[in-house]
């Protein structure tokens, strides 16, 4: 048994290691977290941050090493154990039961005896008021917004009296304003003595909220630094392993022609809700038009309607004076409009995980040859070319793409789209889940296309990147366009306000 030291550590990880098959997720991690502090766990995707925290929360089991809670060595073999030790994890992908209401989700799995609904509701409201959280206990999850669902997740953990909170990429789904609200709540919890670990890859958030930063790279703990004593560049260097220029190039193009004109575009979703409402904008050659908005604001509907994948209620999309609404996806692809949409699970759309690069290259071009049979030769050639050109790492061009790392998968996806020499490139979340190096390679690829005169519609989640990469930025909120602004002139705050619904007054930059 270890002697309790003066600064009592909430969590101590000693020599923790974890493998998945032959992949090293974590190796020899030594890390301590104090009560009353906020520690940021920083690292690229694939650095092992989530795996490490999943071991603390009992979802994974370490292959080696020890964990101590409040000075005592413990074994956390299931989520129940973690909860017993006062550890509560708020997952990036919510673990909620849709058909139950908030109350039932919060009380799910607790060991206390059955409480009458009225009693339960009051108990929950007491706790939420204490921490400044807003919640409707009787509302069903499937009727809730994303940030409401996150509140339920936080309540789950607080209800069980957790003193050690782990948040996994909590701001990925929030607007800047909602993020500030969340941070205010976290600071309050810190004052009350909780130990908080926040997993993130966003540098500015790390600098804003944390007391210390632990940096992981490729499964190893590189260093733990005091936030007040570090900066973005140092952190990036620690994350990546070498100095990286964080500046994204933004070449200026002169000759800009309007290639795509979107007029009064309205789209209804399958479930009857509004997907898009009266969207108007022009997309010009040689420019990157960024699209900002919280998830579910209509980005997917915008991409899909231009690509011909969704039925459009009203409106037109003119491409060289011709309305492409009503054309089949095939015809639109033939017009030179290419769309690449990277969903959260990367392989869900655009690529077939169990097939190799060759068969994936064929996805849009397999109908080109005549006859009943498929011809794999041109695709094989293309695949081999792309491997060389983009530095894609894969044993061979027939290996299933689901075995590739995220960065390589996205290179395959974007590479295929670019090879078709499009006039219009619509790309949504192209750097989702990518490490810094790969992200910058993607930005370079996009700029290359821009210089060739391609019109690019870029939908992204990172406002900083949008501000640096785009020429103009359009903001969507609840399916409506709140404004188009000059990327060089606007600020994050202005974008944030539009993302939550405030329309832009004044000049609309879309002449």
């Amino acid at each position, binding site marked *: 048994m270890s002697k309790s030291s003066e600064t009592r550590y909430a969590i101590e990880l000693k020599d923790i290691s974890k493998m998945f098959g032959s992949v090293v997720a974590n190796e020899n991690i030594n890390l301590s977290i104090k009560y009353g502090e906020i520690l940021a766990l920083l690292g690229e995707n694939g650095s092992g941050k989530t795996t490490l925290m999943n071991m603390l929360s009992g979802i994974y089991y370490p292959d080696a090493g020890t964990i101590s809670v409040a000075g005592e060595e413990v074994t956390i073999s299931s*989520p129940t154990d973690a909860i017993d030790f006062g550890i509560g994890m708020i997952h990036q992908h919510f673990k909620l039961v849709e058909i139950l209401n908030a109350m039932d989700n919060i009380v799910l*799995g607790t060991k206390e005896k*059955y409480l009458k609904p009225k009693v339960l509701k009051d108990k929950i409201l007491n706790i939420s008021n204490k921490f400044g959280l807003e919640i409707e206990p009787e509302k069903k999850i*499937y009727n809730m917004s994303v940030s409401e669902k996150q509140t339920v997740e936080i309540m789950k953990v607080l209800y069980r009296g957790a003193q050690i909170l782990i948040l996994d990429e909590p701001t990925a789904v929030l607007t800047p304003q909602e993020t500030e609200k969340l941070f205010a709540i976290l600071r309050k919890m810190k004052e009350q003595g909780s130990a908080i670990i926040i997993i993130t890859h966003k540098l500015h958030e790390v600098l804003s909220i944390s007391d210390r930063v632990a940096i992981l790279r490729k499964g190893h703990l590189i260093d733990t630094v005091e936030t007040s004593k570090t900066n973005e560049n140092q952190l990036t260097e620690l994350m990546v392993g070498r100095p990286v220029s964080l500046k994204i190039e933004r070449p200026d193009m002169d000759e800009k022609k309007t290639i795509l004109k979107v007029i009064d575009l309205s789209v209804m979703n399958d479930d009857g809700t509004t997907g898009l409402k009266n969207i108007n904008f022009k997309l010009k050659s040689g420019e990157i038009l960024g699209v900002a908005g919280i998830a579910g604001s209509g980005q997917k509907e915008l991409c899909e309607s231009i690509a011909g994948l969704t039925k459009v209620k009203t409106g037109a999309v003119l491409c060289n004076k011709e309305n492409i609404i009503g054309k089949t996806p095939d015809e639109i692809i033939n017009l030179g409009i290419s769309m690449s949409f990277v969903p959260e699970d990367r392989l869900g759309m655009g690529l077939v995980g169990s097939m190799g690069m060759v068969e994936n290259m064929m996805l849009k071009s397999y109908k080109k040859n005549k006859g009943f049979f498929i011809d794999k030769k041109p695709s094989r050639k293309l695949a081999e070319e792309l491997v060389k050109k983009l530095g894609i790492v894969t044993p061979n061009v027939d290996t299933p793409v689901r075995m590739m790392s995220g960065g390589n998968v996205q290179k395959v996806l974007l590479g295929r789209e670019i090879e078709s020499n499009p006039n219009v490139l619509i790309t949504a979340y192209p750097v989702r889940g990518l490490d810094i190096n790969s992200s910058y390679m993607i930005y370079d690829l996009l700029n290359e296309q821009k210089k060739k005169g391609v019109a690019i519609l870029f939908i992204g989640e990172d406002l900083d990147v949008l501000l640096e990469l785009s020429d103009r930025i359009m903001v969507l909120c609840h399916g409506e366009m709140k404004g188009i602004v000059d990327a060089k002139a606007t600020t994050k705050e202005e974008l944030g306000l539009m993302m939550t619904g405030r329309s832009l007054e004044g000049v609309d930059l879309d002449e």
Partner: protein
Amino acid sequence: MNIFLNFLVASVLAGTPLLFGTLGEIMNEKAGHLNLGVEGMMAMGACAGFMAGFITDNLIIALIAAFAAGLLGALIYAVLTVTFMADQNVTGLTLTIFGIGISNFVGEYMLVNSKTNSLKLPEQITAQISNINIPALSDIPVVGQLLFQYNAFVYLGIVIAILCGIYLNHTKLGLNVRAIGENPGAADAAGIKVTKLKYLNVLIGGGICGIGGAYCSMIINGGVWMSNSVNGLGWISVALVIFASWSPTKAIFGSFIFGAFNILKYYFPKTLFTIPNAFYDMLPFVITALVLVITSIRKSKENSQPASCGVNYFREER
């Protein structure tokens, strides 16, 4: 009036085995397991229940044996799909093949080794499974026949249905099980013992199916053993689960309605026009198919199959 009364009573009797099968399958599906082995589990219960009753002449022991046999069948399914994560459809189908096979195999063995080449339930148990008679209550005209003159299985079935309903909808444990069927990842993260509860529900469900099978072998054929006594009722039960919207209390009414369909051909007045037998036999399945389509059009989240039903759960999914 009398005919109509008889029709209602007959519907209840015809629906009782279905009730057991349906409840058993509801218990499986609510925990996330589509168990296509109902026919097999009922067959195993049919054999065990009958043989135990034949040998011991005691209803209680027969019921326990039937429950145990159904549970055993469900155990095979549970081990394969919960622990070994085998495909649920294929495993369930195999259980049906196996269950029917072993039930008839044992039945034939007992038949061949019996003195008279037939097996009939002895006296005491026959009395125990015949229609009850509660003095005063059973004698009330109409209501007495409608409510108080059934055999023990009927009342047992209704009690089990009510208990299942309370269990699933009004207890902590039931809430946990429902969570597992909808989103096992969420249940797991909440600290619920997913594996244990899956086993619990699947096994109890199997046991309930077993009792249903015992009804088929002991009552439907007048206490004489016949092979294949379940004869498709297990499959109808799978359909009935959908018809009853995965609710134990609705299952009570659903099974009586399906029971009514089963015997409708004997009661429908032939004076108007003759409806071919096949139409009556088809009716439960056509109605269920309609219910399937209607519920999928309405997309009601509340009355659908549990979202994670049919999918095995593995925690360390990368």
